[in-house]
């Protein structure tokens, strides 16, 4: 962890228009919750549907993508990363710092709003709010690691990330149950299920698979990103 790198990264992500992208999705979540409240559909079952499909199913992967790639990919694109790389700091320290910044922002913009929304709708009923908050945290950590790696290895991180989140986790996951085993979103749901005793929430992937899988992809993402940044090359003038 390097505080100077963290400071620059926070400013790059929060100091510009990008912050509206980060605020927008939690605002939509609050708005949907408010709507449910108004039409009187603020029961446990509907809350779980909202959490499952929007909080963890849409907001979390999108924020994971924006934040996970956002902590490093723009700097690689415009060359400002050289400012950090031409210093006597080991490259894994740089990627680890970026990872921690991404996780902290996902707590702030995804896990926390998830908890607040759940509590506003049904309080502590069935541990749903806390469950999904912890699920969002665990999923956010994994997304941060995976998308950080993506931001380091390819210039097309956002395209690939969107394709993964929408096509694989979304469409394929909906129709092919087997694909759900390899979906961060589903792993996050398994964690949520573990913390909640609600009968309306049923995970597709066992915790015994989800938890090691979450840890594994996170570690692979962060370690590989560090190794890859260690071999960072500039193109020549050709």
């Amino acid at each position, binding site marked *: 962890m390097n505080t100077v*790198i963290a*400071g620059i990264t926070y400013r790059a992500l929060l100091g*510009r228009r990008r912050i509206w992208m980060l605020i927008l999705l939690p605002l939509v979540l609050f708005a949907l919750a408010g709507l449910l409240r108004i039409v009187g559909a603020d029961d446990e079952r509907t809350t779980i549907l909202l959490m499952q499909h929007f909080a963890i199913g849409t907001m979390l992967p999108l924020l994971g993508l924006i934040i996970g790639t956002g902590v490093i990919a723009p700097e690689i694109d415009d060359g400002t990363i*050289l400012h950090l790389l*031409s*210093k006597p700091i080991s490259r894994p320290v740089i990627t680890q710092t970026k990872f921690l910044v991404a996780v902290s922002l996902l707590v702030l913009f995804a896990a926390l709003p998830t908890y607040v929304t759940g509590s506003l709708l049904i309080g502590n009923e069935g541990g749903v709010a806390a469950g999904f908050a912890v699920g969002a945290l665990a999923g956010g950590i994994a997304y941060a690691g995976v998308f950080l790696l993506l931001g380091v290895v390819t210039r097309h991180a956002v395209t690939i990330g969107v394709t993964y989140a929408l096509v694989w986790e979304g469409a394929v996951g909906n129709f092919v149950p087997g694909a759900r085993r390899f979906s961060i979103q589903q792993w996050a749901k398994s964690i949520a299920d573990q913390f909640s005793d609600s009968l309306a929430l049923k995970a597709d992937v066992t915790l015994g698979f989800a938890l090691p899988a979450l840890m594994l992809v996170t570690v692979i993402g962060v370690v590989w990103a560090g190794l890859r940044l260690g*071999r960072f*090359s500039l193109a020549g003038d*050709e």
Partner: protein
Amino acid sequence: MNQTAALPSPVAQGGGMPPAVIELGQASRFYGNVVAVNDITMTVGPGVTGLLGPNGAGKSTLLHMMAGFLAPSNGSVTLDGRPIWRNHEIYRSIGLVPEREGVYGFLTGWQFVLSSAKLHKLPNPEDAALKALATVEMEAAKDRKVETYSKGMRQRVKVAAALVHNPRVLLLDEPFNGMDPRQRLHLMDLIRTMGAAGRTILFSSHILEEVERVAQQIEVLVAGRHAASGDFREIRRRMTDRPHLFNIRSSDDRRLAAALIADGSSGAVALTPGGLEVQAVDFRRFTWLLPRVARDIGVRVWQVAPADEDLESVFSYLITRSGQ
């Protein structure tokens, strides 16, 4: 603040640092089948070295290898015997000024240079940042955001960030590009001062005049090959002494041709529909001779134009010579 600027800055002076030597041993870099830099052996020591060559000659590739941002495909690139690639500790001794903007626009100049000092974990980052900003005379604008700076100011703040830890080696990629003449002169002065203080400085450029004015040592790169090496007088002499090609139009091309061929300074004379094409072997003698010969035989010369004065042909001459 202004008083510090008036004093010679210790950053610019170098302060009696041990000499640093960058060595390239048969270094090459390929991209697939394309050879960007071919078998280069070169030693860059204290003082200012100019890396000269036309665009696309491989200057950036070479500089990136020296800065640790490109692995040599073959051969070695070292600083004082230590490999540069994948060695982040090397940046204690190297300051890099990249060609691309590479500055966080949302930071002020002060924050940018200070962040550099802190990333180097200097004992007193504020002092170091102030000194570096004074060296490039950017104290007045230090509290403005970098995105409001002109190209020259950005360049200077990049130099300040690269100098903040008082490195023994400073690498600059096309540092004068896009600067106005005044900024250019200022940076040239700064580079000369730092070189005179014993720092090892290498900068790339495709403009001979730029390199001549700043560098004692010049390394010429053409099409990825090390075409020439020496001090600027040597390079200049080799560039002037090559055979020159002139297009001449006159009132009587045929008579002028006969008179010119009679003298040894012309290697070949050809009559073309557009006039005379003369290959001058001895540049000085030829330029002295032409007006006299024309006057003596009563031929009026309308036009004398060098046919191969562009830098590319000068460079390609150097490369054919070094290939022999």
